[in-house]
């Protein structure tokens, strides 16, 4: 019963957050100076008639309240609207972007978590050794690099060896065989994913190290060692397992950062994902695209946080008791 109550409470909280985010997204960009029409009407011999025609076409001649109600109504029908810039369905445009971001952010996050856990455990196990100092030093240093700077450095360092932009070879008229295409995407993924991994793994290293160090001093770990259980098993089965809740929490909290970081990385490497779509749409004040992209990002982060809450609850029932 307590589990059900917890899930329901967190579920309702997530839904309210999503609704507030939708409302915030709608009004946030409309209070900024400038609109899509200013950009689109900047053609030679532009006229007030063109401006008016565009305002009517985009529904911007209606009051903000009216626009909001229409937006909510369409949203309930699963309609994210039509992009002002591309004049195409936002859901259609963003679907491919979403897939591309999931690929990049997924590889970047999973890579960072794996490397972070391995290096954190290694540091904790060899605490205060030169290996520990070197490991935590490098992790802290790389963690402090801005993603865009690190991306540019990698771009320059690996110019000519690895692809600089896009997510596949785009100049092929005929579709290549699956494996060749996979290899192609993989080679394009290396630099952006490496940027994401390098800028994120350090945080995991430090949290894992400190969390594992804490558990290594617990009675049950000492008992396990006293029983003569092999060191590797003590670390992975006892220490790491019990150090997981703060790591899961951090992963959940970091997902927002991953999305934010992906925007910069996608722009640098021209990776056609949600981040790049959002960046472009904000510049163009393409409200339906901005709203759609933010909706996807917001819902993803809230759902992932919700999932993380449940995992934390499963791992440690004291959470939110």
């Amino acid at each position, binding site marked *: 019963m307590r589990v059900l109550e917890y899930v329901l409470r967190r579920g309702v909280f997530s839904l309210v957050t999503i609704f507030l985010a939708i409302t915030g997204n709608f009004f946030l960009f409309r209070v900024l100076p400038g609109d899509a029409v200013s950009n689109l009407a900047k053609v030679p011999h532009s006229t*007030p008639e063109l401006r008016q025609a565009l305002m009517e076409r985009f529904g911007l001649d209606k009051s903000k309240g009216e626009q909001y109600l229409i937006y909510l109504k369409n949203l309930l029908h699963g309609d994210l609207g*039509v992009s002002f810039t591309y004049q195409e369905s936002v859901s259609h445009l963003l679907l491919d972007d979403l897939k591309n971001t999931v690929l990049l952010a997924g590889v970047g996050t999973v890579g960072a978590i794996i490397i972070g856990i391995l290096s954190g455990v290694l540091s904790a196990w060899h605490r205060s050794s030169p290996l520990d100092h070197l490991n935590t030093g490098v992790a802290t240093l790389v963690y402090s690099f801005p993603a865009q700077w690190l991306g540019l450095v990698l771009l320059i360092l690996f*110019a000519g060896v690895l692809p600089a932009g896009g997510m596949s070879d785009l100049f092929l008229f005929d579709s290549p065989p699956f494996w060749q295409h996979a290899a192609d995407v993989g080679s394009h993924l290396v630099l952006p994913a490496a940027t994401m991994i390098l800028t994120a793994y350090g945080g995991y290293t430090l949290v894992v190290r400190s969390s594992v160090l804490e558990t290594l001093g617990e009675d049950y770990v000492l008992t396990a060692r006293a029983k003569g259980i092999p060191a590797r098993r003590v670390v992975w089965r006892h220490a790491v397992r019990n150090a997981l809740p703060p790591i899961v929490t951090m992963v959940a909290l970091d997902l927002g950062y991953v999305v934010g970081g992906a925007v910069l990385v996608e722009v640098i490497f021209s990776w056609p994902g949600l981040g790049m779509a959002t960046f472009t749409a904000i510049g163009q*004040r393409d409200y339906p695209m901005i709203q759609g992209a933010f909706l996807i990002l917001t819902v993803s982060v809230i759902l992932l946080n919700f999932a993380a809450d449940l995992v934390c609850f499963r791992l440690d029932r004291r959470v939110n008791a």
Partner: protein
Amino acid sequence: MRKALAALAAALLACGGLSACGRAGSETADGGIYRLGSDQAIDSMNPFVSVVTTAFAVYEQIYPTLVQLDPNREFVAEFASDWTTSEDGRTWTFHTRPGATWSDGAPLTATDAAWTLNTIAEFKDGPTAGLANYVSDLDEASTPDPNTLVLRYSRPVANVLSRLMSVPILPEHVWREYADGDGEALTTFPNNAPVVSGGPFTLVRHVPKQVALFKRNPAYYGPKPHIAGFGIQFFSSDDAMITALKSRQIDAVRTVPSTSVANLKAAGFEVISSPGLRFDSITVNANPKQRPEHRELADPLVRQAFDHAINRAAIVETSLLGHGRPGASIIPPGTANWADRSLEPTPFDLGAANRLLDQAGHRKGPDGIRIANGHPMDYPVILPEDTYGGAGLRSFQIVRSDFAKIGVRLTAKLLDNAAANEAVMANESQDFAMTMWGWSGGTGDPDDTLNYLTCQSWGILNDTGYCSEEWDDLYARQGTAMTPAERHRIVDEMQRLAARDRVLLVLSYPDSIEAHSREWTDLPQVGGNSFSSESKIPLLSVRRAG
């Protein structure tokens, strides 16, 4: 799973990175695929929706136009083989190429051209308003026979060829159904690949924000291109685009930042720097109705002083790294032969600037900043994002440093383009003090640039708050002057008027810089571009070297 990973790794190694894989694919086609990089994506394949230059350069390759520009910036035949003008300048007759077809086999005739122009005219206040400029004053387009197009205008129009050069002729049999009723469907037709084409290339694939791929169109009525096709990869960062060129992922880049020129030359690339179509300027708000704390800016003496305080040579040398020219007229040197070469850049003379401000009665305060109308001469300068990147910000810093020496403080106000538009154009330009950005004109005709300063353009494109009967009168006269000599005389007069009133303080004309691999040759420039929205000639003539 392990096997799959091993296969993936093997494939990666076998490819040696993407470039090698891509190259193999591109080489299979006869004549090769010319691979371009662009920092601007196609916004739409629908000409009634699109506003970006890249899209119009694409339309140029896939659709017929009646005329085009050649590398000497002269109008030459395209779908029209020849043309005549009536004595009163109101009727233009074009003969089009007989026997032409669209890529789907349907006949391509003058009726397609007439339908396109009449449709734009019919819906010019709504769905087709973005192209309305090209058909203004057009009463009717008719076709006495399938290979003759007659255009009747309500008054003589001087720049008919320039206008028609920019109108893609659309296949009536494809688009007709969207022009019913209020014509709104014209804006919702996505025109996705495969597009029915009449130009030298057909669009076979377009992935928004990633790539557009084109194949040679066997049905094209003109000379066959030497290349099998071309592609444009879109980049959101210049660094990635230049790196992609250097690593042979692409063959050419349309817009090379001046900071990359030396680097690319050293790497063996052909770098072409041509007089550009853009001028960078400082706009000093000349609107007499502007806010009281900026009203002294409407004083011609103040604007003259500011003009003398601009070190244009330093801007060209430091900001543009020598890839440009000091600014004088509002018509850039790349606009055919329309720039008035008798206009010289205002000399950099801080002494003269100080004297003029003294003369205007604005004395320096205790902190060295001049006082005008009871307040310090301290102005925010709006810098839109397409200005404050790189060269623009460097130019601003030079100007700010010199203005400080004449007792005028400038503060950068960085805004994205949409916010900058709003800040400058809203409220009929009464609110802002100064802005620094650039304007681009047409390759073959100055009309667009001159139009920016008309009273009619207030709140839309006129960012100066300038409105003068004299200017509007000259603008109207140049538009109907039917002899080139007469039109040149009026346009020169307008350039001198703009310089005299110091409406826009023209800083510099950045060069248009392109780079391409030496594996490609015979790539002429039209208006500083080989991938042009005004000519098919460059991509028809480019070929693999050797």
